[in-house]
């Protein structure tokens, strides 16, 4: 079963965080370690970090079909910071990984306990349907 774990921690208008060096390094090492662990367990499909929200653009097609971009977002809007796609045996394992990611260390080494949105990635049709 494939799941996407979405880390919605960024707020509109926000750019680069400013943490002390050792906390920043601990956070980076945690994320690298988590991806390595998921890779070694054969559960990682992909893991991607995204650029900061101040670089984000909303695009829609104008009347002539050309792209119209918009980069100003309401302050309350939350942004995807990054995501994992994992392939696991059951939803419990997906929640376990999400909880681990959620507790990534923040400033002062305190777990961030950030919300991670877990959604199943839809699969192909069941064999008995065909």
């Amino acid at each position, binding site marked *: 079963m494939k799941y996407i774990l979405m880390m919605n921690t960024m707020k509109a208008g926000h*750019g*680069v965080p400013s943490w*002390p060096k050792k906390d*920043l390094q601990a956070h980076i*090492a945690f994320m*690298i370690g988590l991806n390595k662990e998921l890779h070694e367990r054969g559960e990682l499909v992909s893991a991607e970090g995204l*650029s900061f929200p101040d670089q984000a653009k909303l695009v829609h097609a104008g009347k002539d079909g050309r792209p119209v971009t918009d980069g100003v977002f309401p302050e309350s809007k939350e942004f995807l910071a990054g995501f994992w796609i994992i392939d696991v045996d059951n939803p419990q394992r997906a929640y376990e990984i999400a909880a681990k990611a959620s507790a990534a260390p923040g400033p002062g080494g305190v777990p961030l306990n950030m919300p991670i949105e877990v959604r199943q990635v839809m699969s192909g049709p069941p064999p008995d349907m065909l």
Partner: protein
Amino acid sequence: MTKKWDATSEHLLRELAPQVLGAVARRFRDFSSAEDAVQEAMIAAFTQWPQEGIPENPRGWLIQVACRRMTDRMRSEIARRERETAVSAETENFVPLPEIEADMDPDDTLILLFMCCHPALTPSSAIALTLRAVGGLTTAEIAHAFLVPEPTMAQRISRAKQSIKDSGVPFQLPGGQDRTQRLRAVLHVLYLIFNEGYTSSAGPELRRSDLSHEAMRLTRIVHHLQPDDTEAAGLLALMLLTDARRLARTSETGELIPLAQQDRALWDRQQIAEGVALLSATLPKRSVGPYQLQAAIAAVHDEAARSEDTDWPQILALYDLLGRMSENPMVALNRAIAAALVHGAAKGLELLDALETDGRLANHHRLDAVRAHLLELAGDRTGAIGYYRRAAGKTGSLPERNYLLTQAARLSDELCD
């Protein structure tokens, strides 16, 4: 009699790939189908040889398997047409192996490289096709190296072959001036493959570094086939001298370590010696091109026992030469760093101001990153923090972003103490 499959066998098999493809493509005058047939033969060899041993004439084995696939394909094509038109045709197309082998040309690998790096192709297609047709990699391996699904890569390769077909390029070496131009295109593709492997520090790292090694292997072949081309030698030297620093580039936790802070004991001395020797043999020849100059710069770095021993005046002089040859604003940016280390940060910042007005680099994160570095050199920590953060906000590379954020955090910690 067969030989046992061992660690060097894969290398042997991959060396044979372009020779076999050259022979089959010439015989059947159909590069696209020949390329598919050779890929199938390679996959068959990778499955059978490790168990059954390497045949006595491995190249002949591959040629025969590939030719059989080609004739099978033609037969079914003819059969299909016969059903449609009811015209009978001679389907026997068997050619004896000795005849095919006698027809082989040592330049086949080069001809294939020229085809795969044809200017009609986009860089990503040229890279994929080169790795498969000349490198002997399977579609699955290439897809894995570029972190895309296998069908995506298969599609990219088949579109590339279609473009070659449409361009009508013949299976032969280009002549005269065209040949020089086309060789530049080949070297550029090899350079891109190398960088693709070298600049990644995330993802399944081992596979990615294989890309750099593959680029070096192919560049070595080009250098061997074109020993008088100084830029082919220069590119090989550049790769050797750059790749020599691989182990020192990332920490145990995967953090990026810049040149100045690397543990130089981890550098590959043997590779550096080979690169320097190659460069020394090449530089006295008449034409000095951009790859040789970049290799020379890498050599100056590699020869410094400590970062502070770096011969910056020489690096600056090399960047001056390179700047005259290349319009690339990145060269001007690197020259500004060298100038700062020779004449002081103020001089470097002055050059950056000039670059700021150059439209091509406007809003590029590297300009901000270099400015941050030079401001720090000048003692302006607050200014440096601002530019490190600005650069971090703009880069498209996660390891680079982490590095830039860590620099900003380090300076900001220092300010607080």
